[in-house]
């Protein structure tokens, strides 16, 4: 009788540990998934820019510099390899797009162009999506980190080397005016 009870207890404990472990794996995957969603949106922004430039070029005779800076920022952002470079390049791209948006105000014809309005909507939605997926990433990191720190899952987390992820934060309030992506804080946690 006693060995049976001991066996039952052992089985229950093993299943409990498996459950905790799987829970941690699931949360970690969600963090990674949330991160990849940000990446998808960054890529989408890169894809939209050539169309935007093409549409805008015919109208904006006097804004060659602005357009060039957007194009350059885009190609820099696309060729950036390290996460730190990426963060910087995406920040510059966000700034250049912001300038373009200001410049557009001087061209009423352009603002009435259906094609442009469509692109404008796509672009601002993409920027919203970047910030909402960042928001979601932080939520997921919060769940994950809480789980890693709380008893009893912290024991499993320690045993199988689950590391805390870092939040993805904007540096200051002014950054929020122009959507800017900071990838730096991410590197330290996800390596």
């Amino acid at each position: 009788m006693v060995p049976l009870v001991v066996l039952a207890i052992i089985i229950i404990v093993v299943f409990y540990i498996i459950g905790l472990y799987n829970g941690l794996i699931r949360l970690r995957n969600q963090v990674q998934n949330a991160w990849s969603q940000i990446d998808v949106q960054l890529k989408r922004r890169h894809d939209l820019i050539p169309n935007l430039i093409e549409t805008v070029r015919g109208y904006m005779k006097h804004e060659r510099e602005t357009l060039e800076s957007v194009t350059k920022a885009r190609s820099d952002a696309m060729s950036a390899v390290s996460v730190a470079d990426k963060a910087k390049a995406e920040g510059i791209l966000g700034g250049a797009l912001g300038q373009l948006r200001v410049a557009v105000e001087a061209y009423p014809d352009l603002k009435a162009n259906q094609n442009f309005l469509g692109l404008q909507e796509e672009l601002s939605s993409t920027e919203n999506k970047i910030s909402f997926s960042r928001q979601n990433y932080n939520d997921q990191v919060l769940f994950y980190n809480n789980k890693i720190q709380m008893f009893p899952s912290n024991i499993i987390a320690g045993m199988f080397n689950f590391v805390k992820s870092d939040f993805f934060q904007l540096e200051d309030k002014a950054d929020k005016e122009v959507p800017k992506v900071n990838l730096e804080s991410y590197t330290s946690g996800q390596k």
Partner: protein
Amino acid sequence: MWELIRANRRKSLVLFFIMGMFLVLLGYLIGQAFKPQGGGITGVVIAIFVWFILNMISMFSGSKIMLTVSNAKEITPDVHPRLYNIVEEMRMAANLPKTPKVYIINTEAPNAFATGRTPDDAAIAVTAGLLAKLNRDELQGVVAHETSHILNRDIRFMTYAGIMLGTIVLISELYLRTLFFSSSARYRSDSKGGGQGQLIMMVLAIVMAILAPIAAQLLYFAISRKREYLADASAVRLTRYPEGLAAALEKISGSTQDIETANKVTAPMYIVNPLKKKGMKIADLTSTHPPISERIRILRSMAGGANFTSYQQAWSTVTGSPSHIIPRSGLADNESLGFRPPASGEDIEADMKQSRRDLGNLMMAVNQYTFIDCPCGVKLKVPPDYKSLQVECPRCGRIHKVSD
């Protein structure tokens, strides 16, 4: 967020239990009133059977009933890119597994609802009037509110609660009617066996049949109101912009139009009660939604950021009640979430000018009209049942092919 869902589920179970008790008691008393020996059990069995059947019906037809009844049409992203984008944005913020389907209801009255039992098969429907009246931020607020209903599992819960309520109402009504029509016959046959005991049972059953639906309804409404507040709070947490939802609610409440396809049963699903009783203040207890003015004031007095604690504080200040509208567990993590700035103002005004024409085009697109851009600048709108293969431009006379 997950703590919230769990807390909601706990509360739901308590409510189901209470409503279920009403149902069982009602069935028992009615059964006893008909047949003093063992009739009570039969009554309970019948009551549960009715409840089961109604559940089955709702299970198989799912969210389709609500969408069909309100005459909503599903749209693809190209029909209204902005609406679709916003839904997608909110899906990302809420981390839903799938983008909800998007529906448009062809009515001028601004309103919206969400439906679907699980986040996997959810749908968000908005009226054409809503799209015409709201700017991007406001529309985002409304979509966020509906997304929160999906996220917090409100729809599933309200469906179950609605079915329970429906069963109680149905059985009470049936009993009172049979009683009314057959009263003379019953008294005669009862006179030999029943006696006083049965008379008491009958009185109790009648009292129960009158009171149970009212009590169940009050419970249902109270929970519905609470979930509206919770969805507002979650919407702010998702968008980080309370003013968007506040302004949207203001515009929606400013409209005096009713939705023709809405009725008492579907009313709790909408973001704002679609049935407005003009010149009459609806009593707080029997209303499915909290007063809009109050919801707006709470949103506008959120001072401590976009988190739940801030909403809870604003709620307590505005309503003057110390109770918790947000489950305690939702307030625990104490995160600091700042607000975001509004979208640019220019964009909004351009929207409003265009919106009337867009609305017409939108409804045509929803109803599967084909659009042909003529080089002379005219946009031809070809109805789906147009038979001929060619169409002539009324301005310049060019002939266009109608492709399908």
